[in-house]
């Protein structure tokens, strides 16, 4: 019952946060110089004051602030994020077009970072003064300090310009068509560099944390018991210790949704990956306000839902966090 209650409160908080994001979006749209009427008249090549007022009336821009806000919230909740005059498409349609590419990139990168990171962390935790430990610390420092777009460009210079292993930009080669197998190989070839770049940010984070938690777990009593039972190191690590050291890493991974969005923007723009990040970048350069705010709302939605799911999953899986706030 207590669990059900916490779940209900969490969902309610998520709803309030979402509402706050919508209000923030609306507020910024109002504060920013220029409105919908201006951008329509711009795309028509200019209009006089009377036409502008007519446009404002049809879009309800002459109504009081609070009524406009209400109708905006209603629209956003129906996922109507407005119309982009730059792309001449509804914003929600644009977002759903670009979403699969970003999901492909981001999910692959996260999986890679988690698997390699946890493995590196576990491996180096067993050898606190070995080379692998120094490598993890060094790599963590590098991951924190190198601008992600720079490491992406370095990979690009190294592995697609000088050694021409991978394509320079985009997601697929237009000349390869028809054959499903060849198309898949082509997309994978395009993915390699952006995935490595994006994963490198999180790899540093995960390997450092899993190394720290693993070392803590290895010092605990039940591991000593397992050792005295005569289990091998491999059995101890993978059957006993890993389970308990994984929980903080998963929590951390669940908190990265916001960082993932930021990373995706930079990485996609380096590799011209046709996803949401590139869309965000292009729409900002074009000052296409509806698209910009639509993406901001959508990514905040992803972060809120992602955090909620992580929180609920942990509560269900790990009895230690079930009841406390």
């Amino acid at each position: 019952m207590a669990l059900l209650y916490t779940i209900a409160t969490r969902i309610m908080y998520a709803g309030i946060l979402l509402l706050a994001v919508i209000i923030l979006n609306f507020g910024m749209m109002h504060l920013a110089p220029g409105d919908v009427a201006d951008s329509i008249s711009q795309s028509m090549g200019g209009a006089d004051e009377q036409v502008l007022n007519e446009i404002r009336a049809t879009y309800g821009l002459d109504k009081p602030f609070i009524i406009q806000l209400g109708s905006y919230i209603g629209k956003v909740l129906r996922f109507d994020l407005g119309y982009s005059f730059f792309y001449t498409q509804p914003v929600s349609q644009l977002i759903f077009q670009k979403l699969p590419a970003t999901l492909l990139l981001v999910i692959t990168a996260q999986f890679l970072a988690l698997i390699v990171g946890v493995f590196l962390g576990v491996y180096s935790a067993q050898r606190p003064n070995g080379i692998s430990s120094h490598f993890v610390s060094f790599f963590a420092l590098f991951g924190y300090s190198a601008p992600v777009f720079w490491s992406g460009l370095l990979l690009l210079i190294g592995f697609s310009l000088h050694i021409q292993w991978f394509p320079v930009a985009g997601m697929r080669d237009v000349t390869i068509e028809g054959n499903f197998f060849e198309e898949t190989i082509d997309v994978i070839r395009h993915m390699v560099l952006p995935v490595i770049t994006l994963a490198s940010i999180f790899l540093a984070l995960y390997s450092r944390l899993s190394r720290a938690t693993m070392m803590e777990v290895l010092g605990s009593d039940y591991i000593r018991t397992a050792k005295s039972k005569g289990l091998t190191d491999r059995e101890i690590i993978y059957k006993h210790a890993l389970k308990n050291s994984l929980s903080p890493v998963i929590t951390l991974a669940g908190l990265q949704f916001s960082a993932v969005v930021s990373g995706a923007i930079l990485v996609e723009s380096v590799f011209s990956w046709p996803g949401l990040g590139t869309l965000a970048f292009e729409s900002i350069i074009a000052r296409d306000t509806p698209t910009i705010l639509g993406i901001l709302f959508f990514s905040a939605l992803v972060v809120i839902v992602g955090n909620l799911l992580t929180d609920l999953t942990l509560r269900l899986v790990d009895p230690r966090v079930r009841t406390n706030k």
Partner: protein
Amino acid sequence: MNNEDQYVVKARHPFAEAFEMFSKNIAAVIALIILFLIILVAIFGPTLYPVDPFDMVWMPFSPPGEEGFIFGTDYLGRDLVAMIIHGARVSIIIGVSAAFVTVFIGVSVGAMAGFYRGWVEEVLMRITEFFQVLPTLLFAMVIVALFGASLTMITIAIGAVSWTAVARITRAEFLRIRELEYVTASRASGANNFILMFGIILPNALPPIIVQAALMVGSAILFEAGLSFLGLTDPNVVSWGQVIGSNRSYLLDAGFTVTIPGAAIFITVLCISLVGDGLNDALNPKLRQR
């Protein structure tokens, strides 16, 4: 001299102790020296090397070391050395002032939440949570795009998206310290809330905040680099990220126009992280025994 003297441990000023701990960390000391040099370059560089970073001085894409241009020239034939020097100014100014904004907002919010508890804490922590769900880079991009790309706006945008970590740390420290005896004692001797918060509790909460502030300078520099790489920067100033962004189309002809400014960002932020690590060791007594 009697025998008991050798057992007397002299009380030392905490700063002296921290300084000694810091100087034991060789990596941090070297990093601090390099940082100091970078700051000197940022301050005196433009006077000692009076080349306008916007002037076309030679043919475009002249490789490093040739024709007297140590770092070569970019796609418009501008001197990269001059651009790096002027870029250092922008990076450091934005890094430090954004960290200042971050710490100011974060400490104010965290101190209020941790000190007053109750509904104040509830409201402030909800606001903090709200700012945490906005994707940082995207939100900063939106602010800069909608309200103009001046250095002030970039600083505010970076501050607005990164204060939440400082607020959480400050709140946690305040929650811990407000229950200690010396705070109760000061309260009993008539200190008002303002004095308690900023005169008694804050000085004792400072160590982790200082470490976080140092790291904030680094992340603000990275943040500014990312924004200006995407072209969201004041067009009238040179910054490292902007040099990379404007030269990225010419990777094959002149990779060095991208690698050199990137290395400048990397080295600066790396040094800041190392100094931050050193400060953490020096200021956090719990870790000293390790």
